[in-house]
Each structure stands twice: as C-alpha cells, then as structure tokens.
C-alpha cells in the first residue's frame, strides 16, 4: 500500500514509546494493519485492545469498524477511549 504516518496517543503512545512514525505497510484495513504491526515488536500488542478499547482515525476521521479501508490514507491514529470535558 505504501508509506503511512502512524500516530499514537495517551496510553498507547506510552506503551509503544513513540508519538508517531512513518511505516511502509501492506494492509488495506485497520484490522489487518494491527496484525501487520505485531511484527515490529511486542509493544504493538496494545493495539489489539485487550486492556481497553482502541479507537482509530483515518486521515482525521474517527472510525468504529476495524474493517474500514485504509487504502489511500496518509495518516492513521490510534488512541484509547476519550476523556474530555
């Protein structure tokens, strides 16, 4: 698929140890991307959402379905449940 910028926030940022990174990916949806990223290290298992729900945003649009296509995306963000206000 090409290079995409991955962004991490909050607990996910702390676990992965980065705020963002540019990664060459093959996956075409969020679910496959999370699987693909597992090869980069065990810290990426946080994205599987076992301890808390993991949300994602494709080019700054929040998506709820992990099967959502990421084809053509330039930025994908991962973050835990939001706690504003």
């Amino acid at each position, binding site marked *: 698929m090409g290079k995409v910028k991955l962004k991490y*926030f*909050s607990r996910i940022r702390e676990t992965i140890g980065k705020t963002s990174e540019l990664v060459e990916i093959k996956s075409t949806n969020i679910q496959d991307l999370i699987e693909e990223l597992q090869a980069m290290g065990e810290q990426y298992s946080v994205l599987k959402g076992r301890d808390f729900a993991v949300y994602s945003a494709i080019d700054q649009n*929040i998506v709820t379905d992990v099967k959502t296509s990421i084809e053509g995306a330039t930025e994908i*963000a991962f*973050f*835990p*449940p*939001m706690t*504003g*206000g």
Partner: protein
Amino acid sequence: MLNKIIVAVQKSDFDLNSEMETLKLKTEKAGAVVIFVGKVRDLEDDKLKYLEIESFEELAKSQIKEICDDAANKWDLEYILVKHRFGRLKINDNIVLVITSSKHRKKAYEASEFIMEYLKSNVPFWKKEVADKTQRWVENS
C-alpha cells in the same frame, strides 16, 4: 446555519469577562447566556500534583465544531463558544468553557448540557492524574 460558533483547543487560559464582552456585541437579541466551566479538582484519596491533558488537536477541533453545528441545528441559538485546554494544569485551573446563548434560557441550558455530554467521550482528549502516591489515566465513569 448559525455563524456565531467559536471553537478553540488551546494551552492558554480563557477570560470569562472578555468572552462575555465579545458575546454581547454579537447577541443583542439573546436574553439568556449559560456558561459552563470545567476545572481541575483534587482527588478523594490522594493529593493531585497536576493533571496532564493530551489532545489530538486538529481532530479535537473538528469534532467540537461538528457538535456545535449539531447543537445549532437542534436548538435556536444565538451564539456557541467552546474552548478546551490541554497541557499541564493544577488544581482549580480551568479546563473547558462552554457558552451557549439564546433568546430564552431553556434552549441555552439544554444545548450546554448536550455539548458537555458529547465532549466527555467523543473528542480526543485524555487526562492523566499525577498525584503524590499514584498516577493514572482517567477513565470515563
């Protein structure tokens, strides 16, 4: 569509008096102004050192703008302002300001609550409480 919608995601504090003065210049037909301020509170069983608020700024701003547009469509409002802070805040520091204004109070009250409910779990902010004995990411209750 209401064109008096102001949204900001910022590090700096906000000033209620100056916000009111700005509002008055643009809302001569409104008789009600509801102001909600969320501020940092101390913990029940530990002493808070500071609250760290992380944000996905661009997305937060667009999500807030979207909910303000929804509120403007749902209630007949004269003015909506939402300013949400991020960064390191201490006890009693302001976190969020929501101002809604309408001809009569009911719509402004309802819109204010609607916006705050949405902000709690749909806008990308995350709070970390750093206290004397512990530190933890806040979870929605």
